[in-house]
């Protein structure tokens, strides 16, 4: 078969496009994309003991990264579990700095290299000195990138860091002193039948150690036996936290799941401080009535009555 020139050109162009078209990928900006697991570790540990934590660090960036671990003191910044870290990392002058090491090296002394697309395991050794006081200590370990990029002109080199939190309770017996006060358990005491109440639960940690409230809010009454599971969220020592409820694995508002309430209901908040602590119980009463429905029906009745009266007058 006679192959014309233009057919050859087309074949060549098709081959070139097919082989190289996909290779000329989209040009990516220089990204920094990191992940860390777990985001929180809770340790109850005796003075003089060691614990080796293990973290998975992921580098989803488009290039290799070197991360330097840094230790920051951490505290609660609000009643919703938001962590605030200190302005500056702990250094050699800090006692806490010497509690932590990675393969025998202190934080700030080692760079962890992670190739692009890989996840690595990083072992962090926690060593509690023998004379440590039996109270809580809260830290954030920040894995920070190295801003070594050379800029051609004026501009910024961006440094990124990703943190994981560690809550440490030092206790010789393994049973640190825990205590709590119900700061608030509030909801409307009189509600409309079609608008079930939402409970607000705020718990204050008045003890020496962090805990999770394990319990629920039960509401019983006319054709209702509801139980809302409290979310086991950490409450740090000396702080107040507003506690949500749990629907399977989702955090939700503590709202009764009922379409209609009528009459008097008993509501009880009951929880323990973790699974082994003492139990705290408080209860209240709710009264439900279809106020809006009643007003609507009454309004309709008045309207109908007036219409009938008017029509009788007009006939007369």
């Amino acid at each position, binding site marked *: 078969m006679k192959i014309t020139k233009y*057919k050859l050109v087309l*074949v060549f162009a*098709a*081959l070139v*496009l*097919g082989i190289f078209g*996909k290779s000329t*990928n989209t040009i990516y900006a220089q*990204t*920094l*994309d990191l*992940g*860390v*697991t*777990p*985001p*929180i570790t*809770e*340790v*109850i*540990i005796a003075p003089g*003991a*060691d*614990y080796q934590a*293990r973290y*998975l660090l992921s580098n*989803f*960036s488009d290039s290799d990264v070197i991360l330097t671990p840094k230790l920051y003191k*951490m505290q609660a910044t*609000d009643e*919703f*579990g*938001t*962590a605030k*870290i200190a*302005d500056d990392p702990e250094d050699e002058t800090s006692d806490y700095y010497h509690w932590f090491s990675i393969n025998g090296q202190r934080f700030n002394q*080692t*760079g962890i*290299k992670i190739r692009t697309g*890989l*996840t*690595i395991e990083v072992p962090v050794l926690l060593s509690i000195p023998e004379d440590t006081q039996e109270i809580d200590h*809260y830290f954030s370990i920040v894995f920070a*990138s190295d801003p070594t*990029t050379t*800029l*051609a*002109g*004026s*501009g910024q*080199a*961006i*440094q*990124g*860091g*990703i*943190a*994981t*939190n560690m809550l440490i309770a030092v206790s010789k017996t393994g049973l640190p002193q825990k205590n709590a006060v119900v700061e608030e358990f509030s909801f409307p005491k009189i509600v409309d039948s079609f608008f079930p109440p939402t409970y607000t639960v705020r718990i204050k940690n008045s003890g020496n150690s962090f805990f999770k409230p394990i319990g629920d809010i039960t509401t019983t009454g006319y054709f209702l036996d509801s139980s809302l599971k409290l979310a086991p969220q950490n409450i*740090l020592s000396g702080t107040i936290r507003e506690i949500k409820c749990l629907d399977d694995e989702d955090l939700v508002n503590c709202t009764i799941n009922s379409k209609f309430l009528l009459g008097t209901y008993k509501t009880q908040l009951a929880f323990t401080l973790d699974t082994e602590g003492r139990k705290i119980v408080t209860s209240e009463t709710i009264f439900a009535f279809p106020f809006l429905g009643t007003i609507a029906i009454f309004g309709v009745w008045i309207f109908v009555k007036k219409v009938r009266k008017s029509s009788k007058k007009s006939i007369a």
Partner: protein
Amino acid sequence: MKRSKRKLSIWFLVLFASIAYLISPSRSFAQERMISENYRIIFGNLNSGAGIPSSDNYFLDSTIGQTAPGLYSSTNYRVKSGFQYIHSIIPFSFAISDFTIEFGTLTPETFATQTNTLTVSSGGAGAYQVLASENNPLQTLAANQIPDTNCDTSCSETTAGTWTSTTRYGFGFNMSGNDIPADFSSANHFRQFADESTAESPQVVMSSVNVGRDRQATVTYKVNISDTQAAGRYQNIVTYTAVPGF
């Protein structure tokens, strides 16, 4: 007949090229991700079949330890890893779309802007913060500085102000998108970065108390200089730190 044969050949070649383009291999990543509505599990190259990586600076143990949510105990400690009521392993992740911001050559009384994007996924108990600061104002090696902006009237590292006048000089940033502070109420509202050299505390630029996936905010960096600004390359380091809740 010849013309229709020719047309058929052309269509065949176009089809062949398209198929070749679609099936030719693209860049592949070294690890897989499994993603669903509720969880994301990351399987990395955790040493299996690859030997134990090492270098002067690090050494990795080959055992996979206590990274799954759960309770671990020994004689002298008890440990809970992860958020106990979230049964999947959900990493906390943070991404910055571009870690170099280049303004190039600055022109007096002409705004120069650049952007990048911050993305956070906080899938455990929710709640996170992203803190931002600069090591010092933009400066040259000779320590000539472009000061942090005071906007048109006033702004600081904690409170944004409008900045539209080209006779107001300095360096600042704006935020737009998810979970940003309320004072960034328009594209013309700018703040200074917290200046570490004067002991200013890093400031929150993104935060949420809720569980969130791929929460994204755009940072717009803006600089303006006067015609008396000394020549040079003005640079600094901006640090973003993402902290999960507890």
